[in-house]
């Protein structure tokens, strides 16, 4: 093991790690927004839209992210839409994550008993107020474990971004292997980089989940 080499390449990984993290963050925020909208459309059975959302969820969950990225990166230019590697990565992550988040949130919404909604209506709240004060707070608590698992899953999925020439962690590692043939070092630092990003997040999530469970207000 060439420790001097490792020492030299760490700064490259930090840079790529920050890029990976930034893209993951934007993608996940977008996925949460898309997921919330889709889950509400399915929960309220909005005509027409619910069919579109259903098709989107099936398509997104049953195709690999790599293929989705190829469509964005190589397919869209054919119809005149050019996206940068970074935009492709973010949109790809939103496309994939949106459906997973939608399903996590929908299961939360459906776990709230209908009569809770009726109880809210019976004290004169509007549908919107019922959603805001009664339905969503309870649904979110149920969704949290799946929701957090999805976040970790999406961060890991970023490792395919190198396929659309985005200089993320995976890209840097492959680049170094190609240039210097130092496979062991490059891959070791790669694994450690993902661990450094994911382990703290995972630890925080575990604590958050436990807190929520015990503060749990469920009957």
């Amino acid at each position, binding site marked *: 093991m060439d420790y001097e080499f490792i020492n030299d390449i760490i700064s490259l990984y930090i840079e790529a790690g920050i890029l990976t993290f930034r893209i993951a963050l934007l993608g996940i925020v977008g996925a949460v927004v898309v997921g919330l909208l889709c889950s509400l459309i399915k929960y309220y059975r909005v005509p027409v839209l619910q069919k579109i959302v259903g098709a989107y969820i099936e398509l997104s969950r049953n195709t690999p992210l790599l293929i989705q990225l190829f469509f964005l990166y190589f397919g869209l230019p054919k119809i005149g839409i050019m996206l940068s590697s970074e935009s492709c990565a973010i949109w790809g992550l939103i496309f994939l994550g949106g459906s997973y988040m939608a399903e996590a949130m929908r299961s939360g919404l459906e776990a709230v008993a209908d*009569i*809770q909604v*009726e*109880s*809210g*209506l*019976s*004290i*004169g*709240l*509007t549908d919107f*107020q019922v959603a805001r*004060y*009664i339905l969503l*707070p*309870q649904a979110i*608590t149920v969704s949290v474990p799946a929701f957090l698992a999805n976040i970790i899953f999406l961060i890991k999925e970023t490792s395919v971004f190198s396929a659309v020439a985005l200089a993320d962690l995976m890209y840097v590692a492959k680049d170094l292997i190609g240039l210097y043939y130092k496979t062991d070092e490059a891959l070791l630092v790669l694994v450690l980089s993902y661990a450094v990003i994911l382990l703290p997040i995972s630890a925080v999530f575990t604590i958050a989940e436990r807190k929520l469970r015990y503060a749990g*207000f*469920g*009957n």
Partner: protein
Amino acid sequence: MDKEKALLEIEHLKKSYDSNIVLKDISLDIHKGEVVVVVGPSGCGKSTLLRCINGLEDIQGGDILLNGEIISNRKRNMHLVRQKVGMVFQSYELFPHMTILENITLGPVKAQKRNQSEAVSEAEELLRRVNLIDKKDAYPRQLSGGQKQRVAIVRALCMHPEIMLFDEVTAALDPEMVREVLDVMLGLAREGSTMVIVTHEMQFARAIADRVVFIDSGEIVEENTPSIFFTNPDTERARQFLNIFEFDAVKGVKNK
């Protein structure tokens, strides 16, 4: 009784789920300050009647009027109607993620846009009345069934409804907790609240009712004063129904 003065008028109400007819042709007037108890066998449609009044169910025929205004099958502003109609459910349906005080003030503050501190002080006043003021910052899961149901009644009351609907509110309670809930309702009746009560507690029904409505298979079979209904009902079906609650009748079956 003068029809004009009825607070709630139900005219030829029909309710069905697809081909399954739940309420056939219900007409009923409820006047201000009146306590009407609805009794009948399970599945006769009495809970559905309350849900129709509160607009939780569409109806397939007839009209429901509150203060002379049609409130049935309204698409718009149903929430304004529901603010005048209090509902208490069998399973309490407190909001588990809110404290007792938040449960009670949610409607007044968010739906009626009343002043927060005014709503809180009224909620506390009502909680004091039902001996639950020490639970105001507790969560529903920390309360017993009877306590939860008293909170649910307070939550409905805090909206200043013109009429209160009670849907088998003691059916899910342990026997020793039934009393504390019924006492609260008796107190309300004495103060002149207008109430429609669906219940299986016959002793209670007799004590609280101004009028008893007996529903069977989706129609009103008998409407009577409690003293006549519980001692010598006009109809044979009411007589049979009341017999179920007699211990002698149970013994009679055994001796056969």
